């Protein structure tokens, strides 16, 4: 007996081969911004993200600690995966413990990013060792450390980079997510509410590369 797979494919292949549609000039959905940094800040704020432009590592760490506040348990990527010098030490000194990534009772989650999209204010996070995917999902507050050299003009540019790198790296991550602002819903009478299932607050610590 023929399997469903064979039956479906046979039916599809019985279609008379038509001509392929002609090529269309491709253009990016979002034109390349002149100033990536300024565009990223503007777009992220439009998405209701809170953006901190940090001067150096010390400033970044200060702002991070003030967001964490009194909490002594956070979710976090492995500090080595976050481009913020001294992060592990500062957390240890402050007595802040990193909880297992599936702990849904924790309020703040700290991550880095793999890229950030200037034209849409989006963050791109790929899962991997030390980069647990739940950190940017379960907590009420998501803090992401972004360095300026991680900015790409638009989503198309990110895809072009994956292709240039051979796509194997992209496929190795089981989960790559593009995050554009806090989780939201408008299912109740079209009223916008932030924080449907994921974070209600996204705080971005934007730093100069190598700080």
């Amino acid at each position, binding site marked *: 007996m023929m399997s*469903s797979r064979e*039956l479906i*494919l046979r*039916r*599809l*292949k019985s*279609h008379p081969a038509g001509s*392929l*549609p*002609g090529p*269309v000039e491709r*253009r990016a*959905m*979002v*034109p390349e911004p002149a100033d990536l940094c300024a565009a990223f800040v503007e*777009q992220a704020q439009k998405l209701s993200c809170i953006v901190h432009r940090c001067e150096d590592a010390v400033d970044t760490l200060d702002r991070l600690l003030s967001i964490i506040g009194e909490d002594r348990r956070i979710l976090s990527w492995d500090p080595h995966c976050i481009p913020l010098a001294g992060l592990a030490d500062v957390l240890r000194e402050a007595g802040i413990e990193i909880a297992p*990534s*599936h702990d*849904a009772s924790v309020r703040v989650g700290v991550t880095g990013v793999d890229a950030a*999209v200037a034209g*849409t204010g*989006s963050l791109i996070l790929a*899962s*991997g*060792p030390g980069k*647990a*995917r*739940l950190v940017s*999902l379960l907590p009420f507050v998501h803090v992401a450390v972004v360095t300026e050299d991680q900015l790409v003009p638009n*989503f*198309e540019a*990110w*895809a072009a980079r994956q*292709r240039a790198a051979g*796509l194997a790296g*992209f*496929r*190795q*991550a*089981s*989960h*790559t*997510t*593009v*995050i554009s602002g806090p*989780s*939201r*819903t*408008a*299912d*109740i*009478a*079209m*009223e916008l*509410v932030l*924080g*449907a*299932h*994921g*974070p209600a607050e996204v705080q971005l610590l934007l730093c100069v590369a190598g700080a």
Partner: protein
Amino acid sequence: MTPTPNAFHHAARRALHDPALTAAVANATNTAAYKRRLALFAFGHEHGEAMRQQAAEARRRTLARLPQLLEQAEAQMQANGIHVLWAQDSAEVREQVIRIARQHGVRRIAKSKSMVSEEVELNHALEADGFEVLETDLGEFIIQLAGEPPSHIVTPVIHKSKEMIRDLFVERLAMPPTDDATEMTRFAREHLRKGFLAADMGISGGNFIVAETGTLCLVTNEGNGRMVTSLPPLHVALVGIEKIVETLDDYVTLTQVLSRSATGQAMSVYSHMINGPRRPDEQNGPDHVYVILVDNGRSRIYNSSYAEVLTCIRCGSCLNICPVYEAVGGHSYGWVYPGPIGAVITPLLLGLDRATPLPYASSLCGACKEVCPVDIDLPRMLLDLRHELVQQKKQPLLWRAGLRGWALMARSPRLFGLVARLGALGSRLLPKRRKLPIGPLGAWTQSRAVPDLAPQSFHQWWASRTKEGE
């Protein structure tokens, strides 16, 4: 849900007399259509039209090579560690999901939004087999509580007011009474969070599958799509066989056109790309990922003159712009897919017999084609379906006799003149309120006034004028 598209006229009439419903639907669709326009044409009209064209080209290129791309997608997904299954019809989808669930000892299931799962009536079958099923999209959760089907493919609960949802939550979940949408959402968040954490299996749909990389792509705003594909140890995705795209670049194009068209966002909050189960060195994610490629009538459409409808990306733009949808709401269409896209694919998926009124549920104004991000010619298809109905003699006898009579009359100038004179005479004898009390014409005048016919027809006037000129 039992399909009831043949009851369209009855359901639509009821909807038209429900002012709360029509107000809620009009508010939602007008807002969505306005936001779409702002987002799609954010960089000018020409740019927006070019994005539509690019999206249409990507989808049509896929369609031209669909079987080859499906084989490629299957091979690449398998290389990524995803189990790929194929299902010909609803029953086979249900069997496969239940088999997987049993095999992994599942009891509780958390679901994110999937129109295919509605199409194959999955929840009912799972519950009948003793599984607990929780819809986690806020809108889907609300209608699951209310025991209703969705009324829109993107925002399933637009037919309900805030007060109706409040009462439902108070009654069914003992929510402390509140009229604040944020508080209601927080309450649902807490409730559903427990469901995510307890689930043994996550079920999702799929917006796209990238053939070249074997990537399953999901778009959500709430984050429930990420939850059901990240927390439970098992993830099953139901995806129509038409959802394949050729390259990662095509996905990048289409996901952005989808977000702009569906909700007026440049990007939905979460566009995520799944390349398989948790890797050995990763902390989170399911150990098993299954993708079920669902035919359920699609290969039949592929071999018909309606194949282009398979390029649909389910953005809902045609619902939001349609004057008929706005007036009658989604439930009137009687099945999973309402609006202009539903008026075309419902008869194609269920059979024309089971949805004869739907090709007529349109004014043929053409707005649906104009807003379609992939430029599907829905008005042409609606006309073709009507043509099929006429050819198959599916219309009521009286309707057909009437049209035949009209055709006869319109072909003979002499007969036309005679009927016009009789009509002019008859219209003078009509009652003042201009409603005909009985018969088929009575039905016709329920929502129309009979027009006054001119005492003299053009032909009569022309004849008399020529005579005078002699």
